[in-house]
């Protein structure tokens, strides 16, 4: 929107998704093409193109939602744009072929809210997604932005704010699930040594593989995080905030800086906000991508400019945090919930969710799932609803095997627990954690030992090395897992793994080490038979651990169906296949390097793996 267009009304708004996933699918080019074509059709006075944050249905990007009407277009290509503009925006005929059709059906679904992926979602933290341009503060204000701030500054005492958040039942969305109101109360009541400073921090150091909740919130609705922090500042008595965000999130950093600048221009940050005597400002600190810096004490060190290493707790940051001052650290999604709670009341918020976990949770749904994307669901929803209804099931007709929640600190939940209602407590009962909200779906082709090895290798790599259990213990566990996947595992390895896991859990210095064994412990608990198959039978049931695989060619199929097509021999880099065209082929086991290429290239299913 140019300045000239600021207050103009348009009959159609085109909401182009400009979250990171859609941007990498060329949504900026789509936007330009739309604008060009709209101009060409002389519709520039009637149709407005708006770039929004992540819409959530990343699998289908680049996305465009047409308002009014909520009409959902997906997987658009540049060459589609002239036709779309002429048909729909000029002549009023929505174009079915660019709409979404569920995998099993042929009929397209035009309306966004009728699509299963969106139907079961409840948006609180993401309530502005797809509806505002994150770079326009006025659009945020139009959706009740900064209304909660004006309410707390003029109508509420700090104690009342803390009380409201306590009553709402909001728990930290970063992983631990500590009650937010209680944390605020601790910070509020903590006395600050020499001088009254206290600090507010937003933890945006999202590091779990496959997680992009915080990133999307910062990109789509930066002001809601800023407003949450302002309210937190008023509640605990702080006047300076820091947002710690990874430098690998360039779009989030840029939109945050734009948002901060606009808020400052309006006097919503700075001195004497709304003439109420409240001062608050926010600085962005960029992290260099060390996973451990998501741990709060390591994050504090990093903000102070020191090496990002954790320290023992207590003292907790609420008591002695940034530069030894009382500090309130909450995660991005937690902050994003605050203004909604103030605006709509604790009672409303606590009516959503389960007994112990209130409100909603944002998950990034990834892995072997049809509808990859960002979803916000009420606490207490079952895994089945997320995977089957919202996620649209597993691609390729494969069977669901397990879901990993909580990233490298979490655990694998097996298919038997698919009806588990999701909240903090039920997840910890099954050995996993809520974590920040990464949800990696796995199908029958996944080897659970390999998964455990993957996550452990990740934490091992990211271990800062300060404490021995994490530095040496995870290394030892990683070596055992590697040996098992190579077919060199010993029977006593499983007990040793468990011993190591439990001692690391009890003795590591920080959360990274304490939770690092979780993927191993949960896979041992639910998929012990797979470990045993690797060790005793030297077999990988999912055929992922290649060193345990044996490839053979069914000579009958090769000759009769494939007529000895010779494709496997041509592709074998080890010259391990014997045969000629129109002859049955054979693998020489001694020469085979188990790369699996013959299996992948055979069009007749003649290559067997065991």
């Amino acid at each position: 929107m140019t300045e000239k267009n600021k207050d103009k009304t348009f009959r159609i708004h085109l909401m182009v998704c400009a979250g990171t996933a859609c941007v990498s699918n060329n949504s900026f080019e789509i936007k330009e093409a739309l604008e060009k074509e709209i101009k060409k059709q002389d519709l520039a006075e009637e149709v407005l193109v708006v770039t929004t944050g992540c819409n959530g249905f990343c699998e289908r990007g680049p996305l465009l939602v047409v308002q009014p009407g909520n009409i959902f277009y997906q997987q658009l290509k540049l060459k589609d744009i002239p036709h779309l503009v002429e048909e729909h925006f000029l002549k009023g005929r929505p174009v079915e072929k660019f709409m979404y059709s569920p995998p099993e059906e042929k009929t397209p679904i035009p309306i966004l809210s009728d699509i299963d992926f969106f139907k079961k979602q409840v948006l609180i933290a993401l309530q502005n997604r797809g509806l505002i341009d994150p770079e326009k503060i006025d659009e945020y204000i139009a959706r009740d932005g900064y209304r909660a701030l004006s309410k707390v500054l003029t109508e509420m005492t700090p104690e009342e704010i803390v009380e409201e958040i306590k009553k709402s039942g909001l728990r930290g969305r970063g992983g631990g699930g500590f009650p937010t109101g209680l944390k605020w109360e601790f910070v509020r009541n903590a006395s600050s040594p020499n001088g009254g400073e206290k600090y507010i921090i937003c933890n945006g150091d999202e590091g779990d593989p496959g997680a992009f909740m915080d990133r999307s919130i910062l990109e789509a609705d930066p002001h809601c995080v800023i407003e949450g922090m302002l309210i937190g500042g008023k509640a605990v008595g702080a006047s300076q905030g820091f947002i710690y965000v990874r430098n690998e999130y360039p779009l989030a950093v840029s939109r945050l800086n734009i948002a901060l600048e606009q808020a400052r221009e309006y006097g919503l940050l700075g001195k004497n906000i709304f003439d109420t005597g409240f001062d608050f400002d926010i600085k962005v600190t960029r992290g260099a991508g060390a996973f451990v810096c998501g741990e709060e004490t390591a994050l504090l060190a990093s903000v102070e400019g020191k090496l990002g290493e954790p320290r023992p707790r207590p003292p907790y940051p609420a008591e002695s945090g940034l530069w030894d001052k009382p500090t309130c650290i909450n995660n991005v999604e937690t902050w994003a919930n605050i203004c909604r709670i103030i605006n709509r009341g604790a009672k409303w918020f606590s009516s959503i969710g389960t007994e112990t976990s209130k409100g909603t949770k944002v998950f990034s749904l990834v892995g072997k799932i049809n509808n990859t994307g960002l979803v916000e669901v009420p606490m207490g929803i079952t895994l089945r609803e997320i995977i089957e209804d919202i996620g649209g099931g597993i691609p390729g007709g494969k069977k669901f095997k397990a879901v990993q929640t909580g990233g490298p600190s979490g655990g694998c939940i097996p298919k038997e627990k698919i009806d588990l209602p999701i909240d903090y407590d039920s997840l910890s009962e099954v050995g996993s954690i809520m974590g920040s909200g990464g949800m990696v779906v796995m199908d029958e082709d996944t080897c659970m030992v390999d998964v455990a090895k993957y996550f452990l290798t990740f934490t091992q790599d990211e271990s800062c090395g300060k404490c021995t259990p994490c530095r040496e213990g995870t290394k030892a566990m990683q070596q055992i897992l590697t040996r098992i996947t190579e077919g060199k595992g010993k029977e006593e390895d499983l007990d040793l793994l468990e011993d190591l896991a439990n001692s690391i859990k009890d003795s590591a210095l920080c959360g990274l080490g304490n939770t690092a064994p979780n993927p191993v412990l949960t896979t041992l608990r639910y998929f012990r038979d797979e470990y045993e198959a690797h060790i005793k039978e030297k077999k990988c049931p999912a055929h992922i651990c290649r060193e345990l695989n044996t490839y053979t060619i069914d000579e009958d199929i090769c000759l009769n169906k494939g007529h000895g097509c010779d494709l496997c021999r041509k592709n074998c880099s080890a010259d391990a296949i014997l045969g000629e065209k129109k002859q049955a082929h054979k693998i020489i086991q001694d020469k085979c390097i188990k790369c699996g290429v013959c299996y992948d290239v055979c069009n007749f299913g003649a290559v067997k793996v065991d």
Partner: protein
Amino acid sequence: MPKLTLADLVKIREKTKRTTEIREGGDYRAKITVHMGTCGIAAGARKVMNAFMQIMEDKEISDVLLTNSGCAGLCSKEPMATIEVSGQAPVKYIDLTEKKTKQIFEKHVLGGDIVKEYALGIGSEKTDY
């Protein structure tokens, strides 16, 4: 930009809302459909559409849904528009001009009274048997 007061915040909210409300769905008191097939466009449907937009902008109206659709089938009577006041049957207007547009908006969309002299008929076509 000087510092915002509480009143400024409300002002920005109300002003921006008028332009962004269209994204939210919700209840509209009336729906105006301008028929914009090739015939309609050739007969001047763009002017009719723009006239409706201008009226709504001038009057700061945001609870009327203005949209377009294809040819209504009666190409000789274009430009045409269908007005559907919430809770009432849709009415089709024919041979529209900017002047007629203004009258229809005032009397029918805002007032609820059908402008009989420009109307073709009430109701929808039969679409199933």
